[in-house]
């Protein structure tokens, strides 16, 4: 179970997720301290391990910087729940085994509130909102993406 940190915004870009000036840093923990600094400088201190970030459409648009999913994951974010994702962010999140990029419909996005406690089951493709006692469907991962996720990233994944 994890808590929801929600930003009601579309197009949350990679410069917001991790501003360019921190791409010089090599240490992941240092990078994590600046996650979401573009819109929420306190983000890092709000996150506990296993929490979920919820946002609108086209999350992660912009740069190919893998520092974006790394910064979120290193803070403790287990998954980002969004209406849609920019493709490079989605791919980086999966390939590096950093976090779960979970797509939901607009209605579900609206129902999930900031601070709600939720559980995500990627086996049944369900999100359980414990706070509101609701259950939502998430868009299932494609077969190959599901396999890479369960392997823990592209490098750990071996084709059948």
């Amino acid at each position, binding site marked *: 179970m994890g808590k929801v940190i929600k930003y*009601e*915004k*579309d*197009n949350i*870009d990679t*410069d*917001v997720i991790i*501003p*360019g*000036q921190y*791409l*010089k*840093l*090599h240490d992941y923990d240092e990078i994590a301290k600046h996650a979401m600094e*573009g*819109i929420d400088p306190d983000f890092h201190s709000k996150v506990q391990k296993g929490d979920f970030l919820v946002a*609108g*459409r*086209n999350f992660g*648009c*912009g*740069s*190919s*910087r*893998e520092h974006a999913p790394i910064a979120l994951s290193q803070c403790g974010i287990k998954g980002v729940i969004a209406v*849609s994702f*920019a*493709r*490079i962010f989605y*791919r*980086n999140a999966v*390939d*590096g085994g950093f976090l779960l990029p979970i797509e939901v419909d607009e209605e579900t996005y609206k129902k999930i509130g900031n601070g709600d406690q939720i559980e995500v089951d990627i086996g049944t493709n369900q999100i359980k909102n414990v706070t509101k006692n609701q259950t939502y469907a998430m868009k299932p991962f*494609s*077969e*190959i993406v599901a*396999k890479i996720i369960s392997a823990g*990233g*592209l*490098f750990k994944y071996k*084709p*059948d």
Partner: protein
Amino acid sequence: MAKTLFEKIWDSHKVDEIEGRTLIYIDRHMVHEVTSPQAFDGLRINKRKVRRPDLTFATMDHNVPTTNRSLPIVDQISATQIKTLEKNCQEFGIPLFGLDSPYQGIVHVIGPELGITLPGTTIVCGDSHTSTHGAFGAFALGIGTSDVEHVLATQCLVLDKPKTFEIRVDGKRKNSHAVTAKDIILSIIKKIGTAGGNGTVLEYRGQAISDLSMDERMTICNMSIEGGARAGLVAPDQTTFDYLRGRKYTPKNYDDLIESWKNTLKTDDNAKFDKSFIIDASQIAPQVSWGTNPAMTADVTESVPEPAEYARGDSSQETAAKNALAYMDLKPGTPLTDIQIDRVFIGSCTNARLQDLIEAASIVKGRKVSPKVKAMVVPGSQQVKMEAEKMDLDKIFKEANFEWRESGCSMCLGMNPDILSRGERCASTSNRNFEGRQGAGGRTHLVSPIMAAAAAITGHFVDVREWV
């Protein structure tokens, strides 16, 4: 079966199919200092080598200083990242165009100018603006660091086949000196939106695209990612072949290659695209972005829009526009030409090639930068800088009180000391007007080089069609 250009390149680079995904061979891999260190670490940990160092090319661009290069780098963290790339290239045998090389520059500027970028090839780099190289009829896409490591180790990449998206720019621009490639691509993104191209490869076609020079086609393809597409391309033609002749890495059997490219590298007449978008070039005006993503753009003759009007009933777009105007400190109804600026940045992988600088200089010549504006030109590469200096463009800019810098990414993404202060407003020829992109609290307006040059002179945006 009739195929699009992209499908032909895809099919000719297929190595294998793995569980519905395709293993694609990579012809060229460009590497820079920011997205590569962890990839090289990964190779070392797993005792792997770089499979094809001869097809891998490195330079440093993102955080290099653009001031005097004979002085040591003040920022120690940047200096370490730059040294790390030098060490990695040495250890793995990768050619590097380092800080003292006459070929150093922004990775997407030097690839084409050195003839590394070739038609019909697949090109990757740990940078989203790799789409630039598509201007040569290549399938070029940005990747993250895990994928950089994968390509270093295997020279291949596992991909899902993207869909095809035709972007047809019909007709001719009304004033091709004042309406630039930047205005074409901003007009396209304004219409298709920042996610319009998600999951697709764009193919730019039509009369107005054929009319463009290579420098201009690169500006167009560069911003494909701003429309959500990882790649965009233009079929190669005589303009492409002429550009690449005689460059450092242009292959020896170039004439034979051209003959085969002419026959193969084009979309078949009856090929079908998954999606199409058509725009009339004669209707395109100089563009100025007013918001915080590149789709929030308007004709220079327009005013800052009312959020509700801009959103057309989409409540989340309306909120986004309101937030954008708050961040940008702009009021609806303000004519774009009334917006006063503090800084001008002419540079970036979008607009720092020779033609960009020639055009900007033609506006600046004999004029002075407004006393309230601080303006700089950052050439895209050392080669661009040298060519520009041969033409005395540096003198024109300096006499007008522009700063004339060394090559690098500079103020496009605020990784080196070239950043906006909080609240400063910049007319920028770069590609992203995201919040904080050019420095925390900085406000970016995306424009063409001539629009930026004219804004530098007057201190506010002007319709450059009145000048040229």
